[in-house]
């Protein structure tokens, strides 16, 4: 770990399937304005900006240039980071490293997406290798469905286990004024919802949302001066190991295992289930909420349904609340989704999470997911690392 950095402000837009009232630039301005308000700062106190989204969802080349009016980046240093679904967390990492480098004291990370402006599945299909994999590529849902069938087959997980996760995240979203889908559902509702791609059903799956998020990172001295209770970055680890979908390990998630292991080592976490007070996890589908608990070392491989899901420890009143915000299943503005995880985790530590606040949060876990089974892990803490 190098220079220490804390998050001192977060801003989110209200998410919806179609924010017809706001263009992409207006959405970004909404998030940036709210982040500045949250941090009680003005734009001239921001030293540098990093922005991310997925190009083909809005068909805008050089988004960092186009976003100037909303970003407040006129005559400021700015660059763009783009890594698919993980963009939100990698843009957070970029802002973190920028502030930790000593070159900039206060750096704002902005993620955004207007999925309403395009056909998400067609645009996402272009991520696959055009010669080898693009023709049969079934969009985002296919691979997720496939990995869960392998998990069910290997370890006896069930569709109901996934439904429990969907119910948890969707009901949690009722406490989150920013969330896109806020609906009270039961396991039965989920099980009866239309099948998308076996075993993933409609209510198991995340939406595509319009929205933006801005998170302000500050180097230690500045963070202490500007914020009463910064959310200190304890670890940021990225593992984007795969290039082809055909290379993936399907029964467990190697990238998440490796990324979280490394992050826990850096942050000195030996028992994640006990030591984290809250987790905002990038779970694009309820099935991942079952399967990936193993890969976060919360339990042994295959044990998630029995030890995690069916015991209720990840509910709001459980030992380790997962996704108090409703997570990705409730809200998914892809370029911002990972950043929302980091922002929500930060708010939990800063005590600014409103009705979804978990009491006494000292350590928070946030993850990002995307691309070809890629994983990003962030650990935040109330104390300096």
């Amino acid at each position, binding site marked *: 770990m190098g220079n220490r950095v804390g998050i001192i402000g977060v801003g989110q837009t209200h998410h919806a399937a179609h924010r017809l009232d706001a263009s*992409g630039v207006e959405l970004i301005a909404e998030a940036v304005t709210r982040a500045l308000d949250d941090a009680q700062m003005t*734009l001239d106190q921001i030293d540098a900006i990093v922005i991310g989204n997925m190009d083909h969802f809005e068909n805008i080349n050089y988004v960092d240039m186009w976003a*100037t009016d909303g970003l407040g980046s006129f005559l400021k240093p700015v660059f763009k980071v783009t890594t698919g679904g993980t963009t939100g967390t990698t843009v957070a990492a970029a802002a973190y490293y920028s502030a930790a480098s000593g070159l900039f004291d206060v750096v704002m990370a902005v993620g955004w997406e207007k999925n309403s*402006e*395009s056909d998400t599945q067609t645009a996402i299909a272009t991520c696959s290798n055009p010669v080898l994999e693009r023709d049969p590529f079934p969009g985002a849902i296919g691979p997720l469905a496939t990995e869960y069938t392998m998990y069910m087959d290997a370890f006896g997980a069930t569709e109901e286990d996934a439904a429990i996760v969907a119910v948890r995240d969707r009901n949690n979203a009722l406490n989150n004024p920013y969330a896109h889908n806020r609906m009270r559902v039961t396991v039965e509702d989920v099980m009866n919802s239309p099948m998308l791609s076996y075993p993933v059903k409609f209510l198991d799956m995340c939406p595509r949302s319009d929205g933006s998020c801005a998170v302000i990172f500050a180097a230690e001295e500045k963070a202490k001066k500007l914020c009463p209770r910064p959310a200190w970055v304890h670890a940021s680890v990225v593992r984007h190991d795969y290039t082809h979908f055909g290379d993936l390990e399907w029964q467990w998630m190697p990238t998440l295992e490796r990324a979280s292991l490394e992050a826990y080592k850096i942050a000195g976490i030996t028992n994640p289930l006990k030591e984290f007070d809250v987790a905002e996890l990038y779970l694009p589908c309820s099935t991942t909420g079952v399967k990936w608990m193993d890969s976060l070392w919360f339990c042994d491989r295959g044990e998630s349904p029995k030890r995690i899901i069916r015991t209720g420890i990840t509910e709001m009143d459980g030992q380790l609340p997962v996704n108090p915000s409703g997570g990705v299943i409730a809200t998914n503005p892809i370029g911002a989704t990972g950043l929302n995880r980091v922002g929500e985790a930060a708010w939990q530590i800063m005590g600014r999470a409103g009705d979804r606040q978990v009491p006494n949060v000292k350590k928070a876990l946030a993850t990002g997911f995307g691309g070809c089974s890629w994983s990003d892990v962030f650990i935040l803490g109330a104390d300096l690392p």
Partner: protein
Amino acid sequence: MSDWKDEVEEIVFPGKISVPYAWTVGSTLSKWFVHLRDDGEIWANRCPSCGKVYVPPKIKCIECYKDMNDWVKLPGTGTVETFTVVHYHEPGLHPKKPPFVYGVVKMDGADTGLVHLIGGVDPDRVKVGMRVQAVIAKERDGHITDIKHFRPIA
């Protein structure tokens, strides 16, 4: 080791990204386009802090980052700040066959320029500093092309 590379057939897969797009214009520009489409008028907005006037309008002043709620109607005239006479044809992209002219017109009443076509004049006669006025298209649908082009003020 690399001999087989010299002998292998070189296959090329043509491809195209065909994703339909529908951009949300947003509140600020929607108001601008409604003035243009319905009334044939070009408006601008002004920063309450520094007074800078922008056309096309901005969601926030880029210098002050303040919301802008003051709107002003522009006369639609301006001065050619720079231009180019285009001599190549990019089908599907260019609105006209060459030669045609693009220009940045510094708009009267505003602090910014508007990039558009310069027409109704022989391309060879376009000059920097030329006074021009917007020609509003008869058929309008709320796009930048509701301005047909800028032509020299007689």
